[in-house]
């Protein structure tokens, strides 16, 4: 176990192992997203209440899942970095943040587009949309804080602390926003009653969710690899690598 963790400390080892893992996740991502999209958009039955507009769920829900999971992974990576000083964890956290913010934006945007046929308006202060908006601000805060420091080490540690503080607050924010929303009870129809979704509808959704996760892993591996090269560019093994390529 410890030998494995010690290996993880080495960017060189990570660079080698991720080269092997990366293609697998790219293939999985492409296959799953393609299957899910075709199945969801063309073959899944239309919703009896919302018609075809419900199909936006196949982008909206996976993006929302990722938006939340990426923040949690970022905080876990921050904790790993703060406790064990594993640089890879911090590089991965730094590389995840923009993707997480982008996914939050995608889920917000698709939610707004979905709002037009269901609520008749682009934006409602719906509990879930509101907490997603707050999550977007949390992401922007972490990214901005990391960018504000000139020293890389301080930037990494500050972003780690903020990600951990944020992750403790996310459930509190989520439940208080839910509570606030139920208190004010606007007379709208919610999409919560989704439990009775038939198999033909949720199977493509599951595939899309898995596809989005594979995409996230593949992209994070790829971006972390280039970040390793950037940060370790003065190390011998990186120079040797560059020499080989030339």
């Amino acid at each position, binding site marked *: 176990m410890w030998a494995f963790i010690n290996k993880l400390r080495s960017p060189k080892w990570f660079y080698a192992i991720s080269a092997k893992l990366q293609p697998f996740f790219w293939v999985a991502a492409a296959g799953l997203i393609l299957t899910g999209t075709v199945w969801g958009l063309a073959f899944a039955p239309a919703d009896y209440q919302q018609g075809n507009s419900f199909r936006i769920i196949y982008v909206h829900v996976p993006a929302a899942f990722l938006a939340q999971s990426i923040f949690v992974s970022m905080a876990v990576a921050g904790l790993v970095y*703060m406790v064990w000083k594993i640089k890879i964890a911090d590089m991965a956290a730094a590389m995840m943040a923009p993707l997480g913010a982008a996914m939050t934006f995608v889920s917000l945007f698709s939610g707004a587009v979905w709002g037009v046929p269901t609520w008749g308006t682009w934006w409602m202060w719906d509990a879930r949309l509101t907490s997603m908006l*707050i999550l977007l*601000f*949390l992401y*922007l*805060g972490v990214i*901005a*804080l990391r960018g*504000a*420091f000139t*020293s890389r*080490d*301080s*930037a990494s*540690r*500050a972003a780690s*602390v*903020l990600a*951990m*503080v*944020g992750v*403790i*607050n996310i459930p*509190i*924010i989520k439940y*208080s*926003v839910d*509570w*606030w929303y139920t*208190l004010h009870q606007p007379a709208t129809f919610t999409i919560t009653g989704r439990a009775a979704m038939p198999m033909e509808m949720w199977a493509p959704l599951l595939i899309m969710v898995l596809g989005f996760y594979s995409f996230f892993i593949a992209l994070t591996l790829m971006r972390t690899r280039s970040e390793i090269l950037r940060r370790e560019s003065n190390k011998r093994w990186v120079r040797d690598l560059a020499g080989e390529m030339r």
Partner: protein
Amino acid sequence: MAVSETRLSEKEGRGVSRGEPGGGLAVALWATLRRDLTLLMRRRGEVLNPLVFFALVITLFPIGISPDPQLLATIAPGLLWVAALLAALLSLDSLFRGDYDDGSLEQLMLTPQPLPMLAMAKVAVHWLMTGLPLALMAPILGIMLSLPAGSYLVLALSLALGTASLSLIGAIGAALTVGLSRGGVLLSLLVLPLYIPVLIFGAGSVQAAIVGDGVAAHLAILGALLALSLMLAPWAIAASLRISING
């Protein structure tokens, strides 16, 4: 040689302060509290600014929206809470700034006393000089916004409880940005999303008081949020201060 000597004397220095009769955490906390209070009393403008800001922002709303008392009464709880929150935010940037600039923050870290506790003393002073005055001032502004009678006590109480959490959470952001030359705007970006639960239950308690619902639940949740931030924030503040100093 010289280096080892200084190290030795540093060690001795630590030993002395630790072994001081009656010394220790309580003395250090009291000294920090008294020092910060004295500093703020000498710069009264800094204490008054958030209060003036609070009054000014509240003045803007009737001018911007409408002087209609009924309309103002419906939005008053939220307005008062948002304005107080922004006023508290405004004063956060100076929480550690002065100490960072003149080096006393580094001295604070060199003391043998735990940094989270000392940071707590500074946050307590911040609350005493901004949160509490804001809470006491809010009912007066409430009258001007024709806030329905019977909610004034709840307004002051919820603000007093809530601003304590705001000071604690905000201090994390202040500690993270104290080393940056222009941390002010960044600070609000970091801290405002974290303020939302406090705002929801704070404004909610005043609203509940107006409608005639029980306010105990809201105040209890505000108290719970305060307990949680009291428990976790000091560690985050201390860790952030260490990052800012070493960075």
